């Protein structure tokens, strides 16, 4: 085991593997940075290139290296521009962007980069440590358990609601209803598709998130007529402060990293859900509830760590069973087959070194990208001082290209526009957007697992010990803040500062 661990490390550093890793990191760096264009779409584009790489470790250096860093650089776009760099970086906008506007961009970036690094290392270590217990770990959760976990996720709508619980619940409900659009898998009936084929496959999350978060910011930028950071071009300060924040809130970062790993392991869930759960977890712990959404560094640390740690978690079912934990893992699985490896129990026996190489790729890629990020932070932050009018065309271009990569369909662009208008109105009338996203993300999953549980076990699943325990945990997490905090001055706020629009 130790031998394979060491051998994996050297294989990643060997030539040409390391060269491929650097190429992968470079691609991933820009993909993450560009709004909307996501890791999954890029992975699909890059997959054919990997066919020419005949050895497994170099091929993985390229693909996994690319995927590993998209989360980190995606966070930077969210913080600096208030536009999600990746679908899974949207939660960083809530507190990261207000920090940028307060002139604390440096601290926010430092915090995000460092938490991403910690998250990725935790994710990679979780992958390494779980190798002996992978199978029982993955088999632990059946459909009934997953259903309750999703319900637990839905309860976080409360925390993400901001000032007005009623608006939050309504937005969450609207999200759940939007999730019903499409072909229903149980009976094949078409729901809310209006004869439109694009809607058969349900709303894709990328155009929804990009529309909801990016378009309002772009409109806002246009209306204000200034640069994002206002008119005070200063040098970025406080980066180190942000790095240190990770250690001030070390256990928060660790807990959120573990949330990420956990959601990565669970099928279907993943970074898209983990970011909101960890954000909610982070702002719940705030002493001053009013600080959330106004630039609390905790709201950056939590999702920053969780999105990168899901990568390690994702790999666990992929490697243990040859069953991918997410869309990007399904593509990686294809790449494994092409280089002649059969992921699954057999690979753990015969090519354990490749598994450990994956662990090392996750770690090394993130260390490198963190270093690069720190080096170029000032140049990146300088973008926020460019006049809005010059920036907007590029932002719009990337936003729509990014949405289009979801399905290569004009439907993607229309959805982006519709949700853009909706997002703008929601900001204008102070409706919280995260509950809507959470509803759209979790609605379909909840519905499916409820159906599966009932079809497979009737009503008996409600009495499974594991289900009962999870229900109790859910009730406690919902009730806990109400019990402990007698003097609630208000709930977590997500809204942008009042001077926004």
């Amino acid at each position: 085991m130790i031998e394979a661990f060491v051998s994996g490390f050297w294989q990643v550093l060997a030539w040409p593997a390391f060269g491929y890793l650097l190429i992968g990191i470079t691609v991933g760096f820009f993909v993450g940075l560009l709004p909307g264009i996501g890791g999954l779409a890029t992975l699909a584009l890059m997959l054919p290139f990997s066919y020419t790489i005949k050895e497994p470790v170099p091929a993985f250096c390229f693909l996994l290296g690319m995927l590993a860093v998209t989360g980190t650089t995606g966070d930077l776009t969210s913080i600096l521009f208030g536009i999600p760099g990746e679908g899974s970086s949207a939660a960083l906008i809530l507190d990261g962007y207000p920090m940028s506007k307060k002139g604390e961009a440096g601290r926010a970036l430092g915090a995000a980069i460092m938490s991403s690094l910690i998250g990725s290392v935790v994710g990679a270590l979780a992958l390494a440590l779980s190798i002996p217990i992978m199978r029982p770990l993955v088999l632990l959760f059946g459909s009934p358990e997953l259903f309750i976990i999703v319900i637990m996720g839905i309860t976080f709508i409360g925390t993400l609601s901001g000032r007005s619980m009623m608006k939050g619940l309504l937005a969450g409900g609207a999200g759940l209803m939007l999730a019903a659009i499409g072909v229903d898998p149980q009976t094949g009936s078409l729901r809310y598709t209006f004869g439109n084929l694009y809607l058969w496959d349900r709303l894709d999350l990328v155009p929804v998130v990009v529309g909801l978060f990016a378009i309002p910011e772009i409109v806002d930028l246009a209306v204000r007529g200034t640069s994002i950071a206002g008119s005070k071009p200063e040098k970025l300060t406080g980066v180190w402060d942000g790095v240190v924040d990770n250690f001030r809130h070390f256990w928060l970062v660790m807990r959120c990293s573990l949330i990420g790993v956990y959601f990565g392991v669970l099928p279907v869930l993943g970074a898209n859900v983990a970011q909101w759960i960890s954000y909610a977890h982070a702002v719940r712990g705030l002493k001053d509830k009013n600080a959330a959404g106004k630039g609390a560094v905790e709201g950056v640390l939590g999702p920053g760590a969780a999105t990168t740690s899901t990568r390690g978690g994702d790999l666990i079912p992929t490697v243990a069973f040859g069953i991918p934990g997410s869309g990007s893992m399904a593509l990686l699985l294809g790449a494994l087959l092409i280089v002649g490896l059969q992921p699954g129990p057999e690979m753990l026996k015969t090519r354990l070194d490749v598994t450990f190489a994956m662990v090392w790729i996750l770690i090394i890629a993130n260390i490198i990208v963190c270093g690069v990020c720190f080096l170029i932070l000032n140049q990146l932050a300088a973008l926020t001082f460019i006049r809005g009018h010059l920036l907007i065309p590029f932002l719009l271009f990337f936003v729509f290209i990014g949405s289009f990569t979801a399905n290569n369909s004009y439907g993607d662009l229309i959805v982006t526009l519709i949700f853009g208008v909706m997002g703008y109105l929601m900001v204008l009338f102070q409706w919280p957007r995260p509950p809507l996203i959470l509803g759209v993300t979790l609605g379909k999953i909840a519905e499916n697992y409820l159906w599966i549980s009932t079809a497979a076990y009737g009503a008996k699943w409600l009495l499974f010990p594991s289900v009962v325990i999870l229900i109790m945990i859910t009730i406690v997490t919902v009730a806990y803040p109400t019990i402990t905090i007698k003097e609630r001055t208000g709930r977590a706020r997500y809204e942008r500062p009042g001077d926004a629009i």
Partner: protein
Amino acid sequence: MKSTALLLFVFLLWHPAAQAQEPFYKGKNLTIVVGTKAGDVYDLYPRLLAEYWSKYIPGNPNIIIQNVAGAASLIAANQVYNLGKPDGLTLGAIYPALYFDQLTKRPEVKFDWTKFNWIGSTVRSNHLLYMRADTPYKSMEDVRKASTAPKCGATGTASTGYYMPKLFEETLGTKFDIVAGYQAGQDIDLAVERGEVQCRAFTITAYFAREPFISWRKRNFVRVLIQTGKKRDEKLSDVPTIYELMDRYKTPEPPRRLTTVVLAAGDFGRPIVAPPGVPADRVKILRDGFAKAIRDPNLLKEADKRQLEIDPTSSEELESLAKEVIAATPEVVERMKKLIGQETK
């Protein structure tokens, strides 16, 4: 001015002639519109083909893959069928069972299955049904006699995981409880491993090419109860085919006709189509090129490496098959509606 007009005239005279000497596909892009997302198995085949096909098309066009995913490749099929200019430069790689939607008269269907120009299919896909070995269902006979039906996992109603067990119900009198809604096929396998469901119907190819089935077979975790090919697959020589069982249980004629129409999807395999209206000579070029490319030793070697089985269906066979399935009687169509979850009104 005059000389320019003259030059133009000469050019126009010369130009078509020059083109006639050069192969049509020279210097052009040939686009294959794939009906799934990139990286899907349905996408891997056209991508593999694209690497070798060009060599066998005079003029060696540049072959491009474009993914137009959605609605189980119905979007791609509609798009390719209704091209503004069917010039033979755009082809489609679509799901084989789309004719179900035409037969059941889905209003969204904007094509006529029989009018596609069939180019060829890379692999036939017969199906099997596996059952966890620790269940009391050792054969289809056991399932027939069982008092509680085994539970089979499926993604949606349009998937083989759903309609294959339904077909067995129709033809063999077996009862299956179908648990639909899983995200992907692999999630069903995981659910089988957990014991949430016990069975799943899917392609024989995947069963022999992938994990978790390789380890499952090693530890005798599942048992294959039935296969849908006309003959027994040589790797599954002890598993009865649906046809053998229909003979044993004396299945009457109407369900048999349904079987023929439904299982034809396996013969369509993973088809490549051109829209109607493409000039016949170009269709011929594409068909001949396909037939040669799919036997290219380098392609076969590469396919083997990528664990993609190759078992082509010819364009002629696809064409007659298409006519055959669309000629299905209204009675068969009614039965089919039941099969894919559309209750008849």
